[in-house]
């Protein structure tokens, strides 16, 4: 009860109630109307909400498959890591699922978690099912991409963590789930499954910059690299080297290896805004390609699939990996889907057609759930680059007053903006919950 009260206070303080969630707040002044700039540059420091790191924040680890032998090359990923921030009183527990290829402690996951914690909730942050640690430690088939399997894996992990927390004395009086980018897709899918299975009975499901179709968004991001890279893909390695060189030029050891937020903002400032859309697209496409390389390599090794690593080879702690990295840089998303994902998928599920897997990688497959459940909310940007034509109108028709669509922000560019965060907090408060 207490937690919900604080939620309501946060909502009230920012002048927003769930009933008005479709209205973009008046004080929304995010400056970048070019969605590629917004995506790369993110939120200018003076427009950011204040985030206070929860004082109870802690890192936990579980092994959903205790009998699994982790390959030596992934020795450090043998248990699934997650963050918790627990209140000292009864409160709702909210899970935050990270975006494509991202771990449980990205700046975005921590910002959302801090906001929820400040609103009175217990919070757990989880890596994406497409992230290396998840694939190694928590994925049944270690080849993410088939939604039903990924939801199974997520719910297994969420249940284990919840049980651990309860055992440790955490008092939970409700549940919520949220995620950003691909994590929003997973939050929706988890919410839909749970609406039938009733393990958690989520009071709130909030989707932040969700893709409609994972498959189409991935193809879109992949094209950005192909179209944007100077001289074509034969120059991939040079392009990558120049990108890291630019990072290194402003890199300071005290900042850690985090290529998001301020970091890109400062690169952008250094190049003085004199950068073409094509360059920005290439940059976005490159980061997607690097994430894809991590995913493909991990899946390949875990399954001995022989995609870029010989199926007979057991890579160890001291094995050289750079050649795999170089090969993967040149392989497209459709190469991965056709040559690695689908063969593995078909071996696991011989009775399920490829078309079915693609359909299930779209939120359109759970349209009824999102349309008919008043506790599912959406935050989005009208110019999000991962969406296609017709996606925003579809979201608006499905969510109605439960969608807040900001006029700009690109993909996740405005996520730290005070108005965006205030809306996020309000979607977890309001009267429609429970």
């Amino acid at each position, binding site marked *: 009860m207490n937690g919900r009260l604080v939620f309501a206070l946060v909502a009230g303080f920012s002048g927003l109630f769930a009933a008005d969630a479709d209205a973009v707040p008046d004080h929304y002044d995010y400056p970048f109307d070019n969605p590629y700039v917004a995506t790369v540059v993110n939120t200018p420091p003076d427009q950011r909400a204040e985030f206070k790191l929860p004082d109870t924040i802690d890192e936990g680890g579980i092994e959903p498959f205790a009998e699994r032998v982790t390959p030596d090359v992934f020795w450090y990923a043998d248990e699934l890591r997650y963050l918790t921030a627990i209140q000292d009183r009864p409160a709702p527990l909210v899970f935050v699922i990270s975006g494509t290829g991202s771990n449980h402690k990205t700046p975005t996951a921590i910002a959302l978690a801090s906001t929820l914690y400040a609103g009175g909730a217990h919070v757990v942050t989880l890596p994406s099912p497409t992230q290396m640690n998840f694939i190694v430690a928590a994925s049944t088939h270690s080849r993410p991409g088939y939604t039903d399997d990924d939801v199974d894996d997520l719910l297994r992990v969420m249940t284990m963590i919840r049980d651990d927390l309860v055992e440790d004395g955490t008092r939970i009086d409700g549940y919520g789930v949220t995620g950003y980018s691909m994590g929003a897709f997973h939050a929706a899918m988890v919410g839909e499954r749970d609406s039938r299975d009733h393990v958690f009975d989520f009071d709130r499901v909030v989707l932040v910059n969700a893709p409609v179709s994972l498959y189409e968004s991935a193809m879109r991001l992949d094209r950005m690299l192909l179209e944007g890279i100077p001289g074509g893909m034969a120059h991939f390695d040079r392009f990558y080297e120049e990108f890291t060189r630019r990072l290194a030029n402003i890199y300071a050891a005290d900042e850690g*290896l985090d290529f998001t937020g301020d970091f890109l903002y400062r690169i952008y400032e250094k190049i003085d805004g004199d950068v073409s859309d094509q360059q920005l697209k290439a940059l976005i496409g490159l980061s997607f390609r690097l994430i894809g390389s991590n995913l493909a390599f991990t899946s390949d090794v875990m399954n001995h699939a*022989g995609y870029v690593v010989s199926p007979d080879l057991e890579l160890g702690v001291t094995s050289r990996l750079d050649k795999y990295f170089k090969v993967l840089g040149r392989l497209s998303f459709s190469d991965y889907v056709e040559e690695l994902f689908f063969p593995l998928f078909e071996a696991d599920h011989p009775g399920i057609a490829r078309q079915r897997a693609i359909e299930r990688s779209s939120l359109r497959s759970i349209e009824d759930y999102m349309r008919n459940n008043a506790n599912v909310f959406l935050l989005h940007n009208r110019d999000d680059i991962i969406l296609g034509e017709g996606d925003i109108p579809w979201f608006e028709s499905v969510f109605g007053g439960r969608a807040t669509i900001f006029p700009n922000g690109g993909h996740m560019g405005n996520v730290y903006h005070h108005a965006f965060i205030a809306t996020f907090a309000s979607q977890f408060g309001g009267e429609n919950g429970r």
Partner: protein
Amino acid sequence: MRSVLPKLALATLLLSGCAGTPDRPLTPARHVIDEIERPDDGFPSDIYDPFEGFNRGSYTFNAKFDEYVFLPVVYGYRAVMPDVLEDRVHDFFSNLSEIPTFVNSLLQLNFDHAGRAAHRFLVNSTVGLLGFVDIATLTGTEQEREDFGQTLGVWGLGEGPYIVLPILGPSNLRDATGLAVTAVATAAAVPPDVSDTTAYEATAYGLRPIDTRNNVAFRYYSSSSPFEYELVRLLYTQKRQFDILR
């Protein structure tokens, strides 16, 4: 592809550069490095790393040392020290680092950086209460760091092979030499009746590394990439090249 010969040939190519030699030829992967055209002057992202096996072992050791020894000590330090005192300690060590920066700036004939280091050291050691408060930065004189590895680089010495030093982390032959020379020079410069005291040893080999680690946000295996070693190697090398040009 049913014939054994191309498999053998591919497997041999695949194996070149691998640490161990298995008993039988490996089934080639679907995509191998040879399908990529190698630029005449090598891949731009390649770093000379002939001791990669050792280096990767060292990287792994450092990650474990960090998790089980270094970070717990740093977190303990953070827990007992008020933030204000942490900052004072950091400023104090930062002020001491002006001395090697001054010397190396002179060796590089970089009088701007030398002057800046001297100015900062004088201001911070006096007005800044023996260096515990970084007044110089507050009054607009930003810190530059120069070390002996950079000095060697400025005078044209190549970086040599990449080396991951146990505990100390990414380096290369030139920078590691620089570190060793600096350590010897420091030992010679500090009078024995100071350097032999427990207080000096606790400060130099205890508090200082703790302060350094406390101010480095890097965490091993937090990049979500199985290619973190390659990424760190590339970024370290590029960063040093940039520092030398500056």
